[in-house]
């Protein structure tokens, strides 16, 4: 996982990932999650490694807000494994799991403006752009716009028919 995450392009669009990303960051993350899903004010988060042909190619996770029945998803695919539809396949699987098994009303994600790959993945999950929170965060020394994407339970079920 460390070489996949230690990538300037990942760091550019995913504020949560330190850069450079070292074994030490990974070890700290593993320690924090040893007791199972991380419990935060916004809900429980569930991380997954994405494996293809026995190889780790990325990760995906979602945070579940039980009160508002909403799943917030996020993912990273290693540079060498991009442009093969891996993120799309993983994001669809998580969206389907959230809607079917958790009975989510809403599945959503945020994207830093300028990230061209992710909107395509989210649109493939039926998500629509709901708006842009302007200059909402400081990332790498600049204020960045945050795009909000979401698909509703009714929309996802219609697509699956």
């Amino acid at each position, binding site marked *: 996982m460390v070489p996949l995450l230690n990538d300037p392009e990942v760091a550019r669009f995913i504020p949560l990932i330190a850069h450079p990303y070292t074994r030490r960051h990974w070890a700290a993350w593993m320690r924090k999650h040893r007791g199972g899903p991380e419990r935060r004010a916004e809900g429980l988060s569930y991380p997954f490694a994405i494996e293809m042909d026995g190889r780790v190619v990325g990760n995906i996770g979602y945070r579940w807000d039980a009160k*508002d029945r909403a799943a917030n998803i996020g993912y990273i695919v290693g540079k060498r494994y991009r442009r093969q539809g891996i993120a799309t396949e993983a994001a669809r699987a998580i969206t389907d799991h959230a809607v079917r098994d958790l009975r989510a009303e809403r599945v959503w994600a945020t994207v830093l403006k300028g990230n061209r790959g992710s909107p395509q993945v989210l649109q493939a999950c039926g998500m629509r752009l*709901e*708006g*842009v929170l302007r200059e*909402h965060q*400081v990332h790498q020394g600049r204020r960045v716009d945050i795009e909000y994407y979401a698909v509703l339970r009714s929309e996802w079920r219609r697509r699956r028919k």
Partner: protein
Amino acid sequence: MRIYPIRTRRLTLRWPEMEDAPVLVKLLSEPSVSRNIPRIPYPYRRADAVKWLRQVRRPRFNPSFGRGYDFMIEMDGAVVGCCHLSWNLKERRAFFGYWVGKPYRGQGIATEVSKGLVDFAFARLGAQRVWAMAFAENTMSRHVLEKAGLMQEALLRRNALFHGRWRDDACYGVLRREWRGFR
């Protein structure tokens, strides 16, 4: 940085005291107030007021909103509502919210509070961005946010389940370079 009190033309936004419990119960027993504000229970009892006052009188930190401050809104010595300001220092971003008791509506109190908090965030905290949210169906509040210089940036569909109904959330924001100063 001293936060309390914040003064506007007619209003004082002050520290909540334990003695505010009865007025909270009185104003929040009117359903038209709490039906628009997530997390305010209805019916609203004394125990709810005491619990809330205990919470807000302690320093609070939320990873996305930052440090949270709650205020009683006072006009001519009477409590007319409450407001809230969160300050995320790392993102230089402030968030605010408010409610005004039913007997005090139609006097521009919410607008005066909003302008006061926006001014405070930009002028005193050095915010680069100030934002707020309202249920999409709450047209009164959306109008207030627009009068305070914020623009709608997003509409999050079915973002909250409240009193058994799904609500859309409208997000509003204003940037430092757009801020004119209301005083």
